[in-house]
């Protein structure tokens, strides 16, 4: 049997962020309208492998996913071993805009899931003119902590095991086993304290409940897609956000959970492709 390669190409980009040199892993596939993909907390760009391998997407889009610093194949910056990693709204926003500039992406579509979905709401509010359209997956405006985040980073609990186990129930019941466990594997591979540091943004710093209604979809179209089985960002919470933003479009994806693009790419594409069509027709 001969080897078969996927069309995804990965490269390492050197870029100064927050005044420090960073080595950032960037993957892409396809040609056309740039589609910038933001992964969830504690995971990496591999979550978008399904989009990058689907010709229905890549025939019209240049699909790009980067691993955030400290995640996946991106390195933490030199000096990391003395620091506590914590993602903030300001750093997350700066990172996305700087990487867009470095890659010379002119008005991309941005799609982000979970923390990526949350920052999509921030981008829709503060930088709508930089994007052709914004697609928030599992995008709630805020979430109060419901378990002790310290369990994600302490020496008597295995970080990889607990991160995988924490999120396992967020995968929908119909996800194919191979994709379900691939999704959980990414969580199990995260660096110590990284999922927890991302959740600082998700559960504390990035709360946008008080401002989300100010998003103006005339400046940039906003689409919200949420899986039925997500209890981190529930369908009700997504619909609440959608109701507060005139012109936004919400879709509840039956049977799917918190990681639609990774846990069941084929089912997810049935929901995403019509959204991409709408954006292309604008």
């Amino acid at each position: 049997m001969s080897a078969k390669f996927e069309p995804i190409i990965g490269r390492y980009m050197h870029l100064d962020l927050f005044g420090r040199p960073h080595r950032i892993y960037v993957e892409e596939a396809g040609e056309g309208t740039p589609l910038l993909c933001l992964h969830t907390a504690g995971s990496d760009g591999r979550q978008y492998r399904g989009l990058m391998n689907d010709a229905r997407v890549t025939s019209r889009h240049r699909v790009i996913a980067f691993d955030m610093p400290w995640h996946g194949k991106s390195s933490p910056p030199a000096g990391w071993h003395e620091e506590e990693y914590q993602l903030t709204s300001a750093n997350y926003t700066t990172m996305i805009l700087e990487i867009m500039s470095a890659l010379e992406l002119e008005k991309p579509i941005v799609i982000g899931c979970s923390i990526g979905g949350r920052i999509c709401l921030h981008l829709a509010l503060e930088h709508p003119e930089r994007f052709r359209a914004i697609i928030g997956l599992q995008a709630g405006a805020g979430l109060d902590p419901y378990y002790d985040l310290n369990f994600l980073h302490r020496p008597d609990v295995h970080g990889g095991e607990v991160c995988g186990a924490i999120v396992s129930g967020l995968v929908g019941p119909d996800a194919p086993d191979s994709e379900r466990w691939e999704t959980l594997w990414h969580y199990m591979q995260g660096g110590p304290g990284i999922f927890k540091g991302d959740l600082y943004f998700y559960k504390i710093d990035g709360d946008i409940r008080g401002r989300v209604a100010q998003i103006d979809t005339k400046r940039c179209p906003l689409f919200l897609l949420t899986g039925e089985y997500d209890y981190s960002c529930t369908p009700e919470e997504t619909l609440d956000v959608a109701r507060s933003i005139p012109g936004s479009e919400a879709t509840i994806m039956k049977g799917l959970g918190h990681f639609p693009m990774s846990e069941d790419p084929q089912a997810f594409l049935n929901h995403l492709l019509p959204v991409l069509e709408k954006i292309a027709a604008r």
Partner: protein
Amino acid sequence: MIEALKQRVNDDAGLVRRGKFLTTTFLLEVGATPWLISIFEGRVVSVTRGPFVMPSSSFALRASEEEWQKFWSRRPPPGSNDLLAMVRRRVLKTEGNLQIFMANLRYFKEALAKLRAGVSA
């Protein structure tokens, strides 16, 4: 029905293997009925129904009978499909030394899901 836990867990060689470093007794409350479940190196050694006079356990999981029935249904509805989903809705209370619970979270999730309708004995 809770008694079935012993055989269903112990028959799953992978689950027992993953529990190799787990030895504890925890309290499971299904509405007003408490159960003490003892695990030795990943194998469930006893499932005892209360009431108890002075139960000793490392931690306790407490939910109403109605909530557990949803969790144990063949296809649990959203919000009832996972222990953490129940915690998020504040219908599952976790108390005690939760380090043991969290360090073995996959084990406890999978073990308790063994009581789901349609899981073979």
